[in-house]
C-alpha cells in the first residue's frame, strides 16, 4: 500500500546513474531492539518515481529488521559528479518471482557464474520499498566534465539506424550496420555479435569491432558465463563495475584464458569494466547476442540497455527476413570453371576430422563445426572438379553437410568461414559474387587429407 507522502526533494528520475551500481550503496535498518544495522547493497534498482527494489542475498539482519520495522535509509552516489543522496524508505513487500525478480536474479547469477560462485549467490528475493524522501547530502561541489552521461539519442537518429537495418542487403552488411549503431548511438568502440547455433546449444562469434583479435569463430555454451546466461535466459545483463562485482563475488576463478588448440578465444579487452549483453530475439526465438564492452566503469547506462535492446530486436527480425528473401536467390546456374592456370606455390595440407568437422591448414587449427564441414566440401569440389563458384542453395541441399532444417545460419557460417580464412591464411578466400552465390579463390595447390581416410589407409 502506497502512502501519500510529500513530493521528493530530488526526483529519482533526475539521478539515474545512482541506480547503476557503479559505487556501492549503503543501507541502514533498525532492529527489534532499536539498534541500527548498516551494510552495503549490491543493487538498488529504481522501479518507478516512488519505489526502489533492493536485492536480498546475504543480509540476514537487514531482512529481519525490515520485516519488523519497515523503515530504512539508503545512501547512493552519482558516479559522474560524486554527489550523494539519501533515500528514506518504507518496506512494502518481497517479490520472489516476476519480471523484476528475474531481471535482478539474472544479473547476480551472471556475475556469480563469471566468478565461479554460482551456488553461493542465489537471490532470495527482491524487497520493494516506497521512497518517502530523497535528499541531497551536503558535500563538496559536484565534479563535472568527467563521465557525464552522453546526450540522449534522438528519434531521428534511431529512425536512421532503422532505415539502414531495413536496407541491409545481406547478413554481413546487417551486422556491420548493427556494430556501427552501437558505436554511433551508444559510443561503444568494442562490440561483438554471437549467433546461436541451430540446436541452441552454442553461441559463436560472427562479427566484432574494436578488438586486437577479432575472436571470429569463438564459441560459448548457452548458460555458460555471463554471456551464455544472458542468452539462455533471454535477458539483458549489464555490468557497470566488473572488478568490484567480481571482488564482491569473492572471485576465485576467472574464465579460462588459455584456449585449447582448437578453441578460439572470445574477443576481449585488457581490462573490461563495463559490459552489456543483449539477446537478439525474433518472434521470441533467440537469434544471438550482442556484447558491448568498455574499460570505463559505468560506461553503459539503463538508457543504453533499452536502446541496444530495440536495435537488437530490429536486427534479429531483419535477419529472419533476409533468410526468407535469400531462399529464392542463388538459383542461377553455377559455373564449373576450371582453373586457367594452376597455382604454383607449395601445396598446403588441409586436414579434416569428420568427428567434429574441424579443419587444420598445415597443422594449424582453422575452424570446426558446420563451417569446417562447408570448407571441406568446397575444397573437395575444387580439387575433384575444378569448381570455384558455388551457391548457398546447393549447400543447403547438400545432405552430406547435414545442415539442420533451420537455415538461417548458413550465411552466418559463410561469413565466419570467410573471416577466419582472412585471418589465418593468404591463399584461400571466399568472395561474394552475387546474391546467394560466392567464389572460392585458391592461390596455392591444395592437398586434402581426411583423418577418416588416413585412418582407413593405415589399417
Amino acid at each position, binding site marked *: 500500500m502506497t502512502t501519500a507522502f510529500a513530493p521528493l526533494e530530488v526526483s529519482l528520475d533526475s539521478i539515474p546513474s545512482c541506480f547503476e551500481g557503479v559505487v556501492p550503496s*549503503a543501507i541502514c535498518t533498525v532492529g527489534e531492539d532499536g539498534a*541500527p544495522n548498516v551494510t552495503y547493497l549490491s543493487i538498488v534498482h529504481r522501479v518507478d518515481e516512488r519505489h526502489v527494489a533492493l536485492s536480498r542475498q546475504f543480509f*540476514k539482519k537487514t531482512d529481519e529488521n525490515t520485516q519488523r520495522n519497515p523503515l530504512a535509509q539508503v*545512501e547512493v552516489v552519482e558516479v559522474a559528479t*560524486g554527489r550523494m543522496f539519501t533515500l*528514506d524508505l518504507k518496506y512494502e513487500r518481497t517479490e520472489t518471482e516476476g519480471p523484476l525478480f528475474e531481471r535482478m536474479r539474472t544479473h547476480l547469477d551472471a556475475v556469480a557464474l563469471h566468478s565461479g560462485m554460482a551456488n553461493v549467490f542465489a537471490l532470495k528475493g527482491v524487497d520493494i520499498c516506497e521512497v518517502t524522501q530523497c535528499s541531497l547530502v*551536503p558535500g563538496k561541489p559536484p565534479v563535472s566534465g568527467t563521465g557525464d552521461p552522453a546526450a540522449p539519442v534522438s528519434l531521428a537518429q534511431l529512425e536512421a539506424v532503422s532505415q539502414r537495418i531495413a536496407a541491409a542487403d545481406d547478413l554481413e552488411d546487417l551486422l556491420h550496420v548493427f556494430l556501427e549503431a552501437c558505436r554511433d548511438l551508444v559510443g561503444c568502440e568494442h562490440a561483438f555479435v554471437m549467433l546461436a547455433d541451430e540446436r541452441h546449444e552454442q553461441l559463436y562469434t560472427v562479427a566484432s569491432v574494436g578488438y586486437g583479435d577479432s575472436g571470429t569463430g569463438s564459441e560459448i555454451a548457452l548458460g555458460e558465463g555471463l554471456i551464455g546466461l544472458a542468452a539462455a535466459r533471454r535477458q539483458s545483463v549489464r555490468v557497470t*563495475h566488473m*572488478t568490484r562485482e567480481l571482488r564482491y563475488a569473492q572471485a576465485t576463478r576467472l574464465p579460462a584464458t588459455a584456449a585449447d588448440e582448437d578453441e578460439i578465444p572470445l574477443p576481449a579487452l585488457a581490462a573490461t569494466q563495463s559490459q552489456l549483453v543483449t539477446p537478439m530475439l525474433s518472434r521470441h526465438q533467440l537469434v544471438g547476442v550482442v556484447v558491448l564492452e568498455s574499460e570505463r566503469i559505468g560506461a553503459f547506462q539503463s538508457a543504453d540497455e533499452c536502446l541496444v535492446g530495440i536495435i537488437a530486436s530490429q536486427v534479429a527480425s531483419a535477419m529472419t527476413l533476409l533468410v526468407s528473401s535469400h531462399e529464392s536467390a542463388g538459383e542461377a546456374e553455377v559455373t564449373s570453371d576450371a582453373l586457367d592456370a594452376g597455382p604454383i606455390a607449395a601445396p598446403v595440407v588441409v586436414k579434416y576430422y569428420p568427428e567434429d568437422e574441424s579443419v587444420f591448414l598445415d597443422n594449424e587449427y582453422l575452424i570446426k563445426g558446420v563451417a569446417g564441414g562447408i570448407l571441406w566440401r568446397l575444397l573437395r569440389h575444387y580439387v575433384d572438379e575444378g569448381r570455384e563458384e558455388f551457391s548457398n542453395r546447393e549447400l543447403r541441399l547438400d545432405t552430406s553437410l547435414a545442415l539442420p532444417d533451420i537455415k538461417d545460419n548458413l550465411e552466418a557460417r559463410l561469413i565466419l568461414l570467410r573471416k577466419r580464412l582472412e585471418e589465418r591464411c593468404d591463399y584461400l578466400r571466399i568472395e561474394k559474387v552475387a546474391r546467394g552465390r560466392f567464389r572460392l579463390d585458391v592461390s596455392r595447390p591444395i592437398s586434402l587429407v581426411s583423418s577418416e581416410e588416413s585412418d582407413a589407409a593405415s589399417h
Partner: protein
Amino acid sequence: MFSIDDELHEFCESGVAVLIGWVDATGHPRVSYAWGPRVHPDARTVSVYVERERCTSLVEVAATRPQIAVTFTEPVSARSIQMKGPLLDTGEPTEAERAWVTRQRDAMTVSTSLIGDPPHIIRNLWMDDVIRIDFEVERAFDQTPGPNAGRPLVAGGVA
C-alpha cells in the same frame, strides 16, 4: 564484552571504507560515510570521524548514548566487519587526528583505485569539517558477502 584483537585492530586501521548507522530522534535509521577509524588501547573503544554537516541528527541524540553500528570494508577483498555498541562521546578532532583522518582517506583512495574507482570521485565524497565519534564495541559481526554474513565474531574472546 567484545575485545578487538591485533589482527582486527590492524584491519580497522588499514584504510578501509567505513559506514556509520544510527537511529535519529524520530526513530528513523540514518546512514553516512565515516572516516579514519582508530582503535583505542583498551581494545574496546573505537573512534571514527564524520562530517559535522551530515550527521547533525546523530549529534542531537549523542547525549542519550544511542546504539550505533559501524561497518568496515576492505574494497579489494570485500572483507567486511560490523561493530555495534553505544556511542560514548563526541568531540573536536585535534590537528594530529585530522592528519590521521587524511592519511586514512588517502589509503582508502588507493584501495578503491585498485578496483577501478576514479580517485577524483572518491575524494569528492568527503568534507574537511569532521567531528569525532567514540563508541564502545559490544558486538561484532562478519559482514563479508557470502553464506557467513551476519555471523557473530568471537575474535579476542567474548566475556
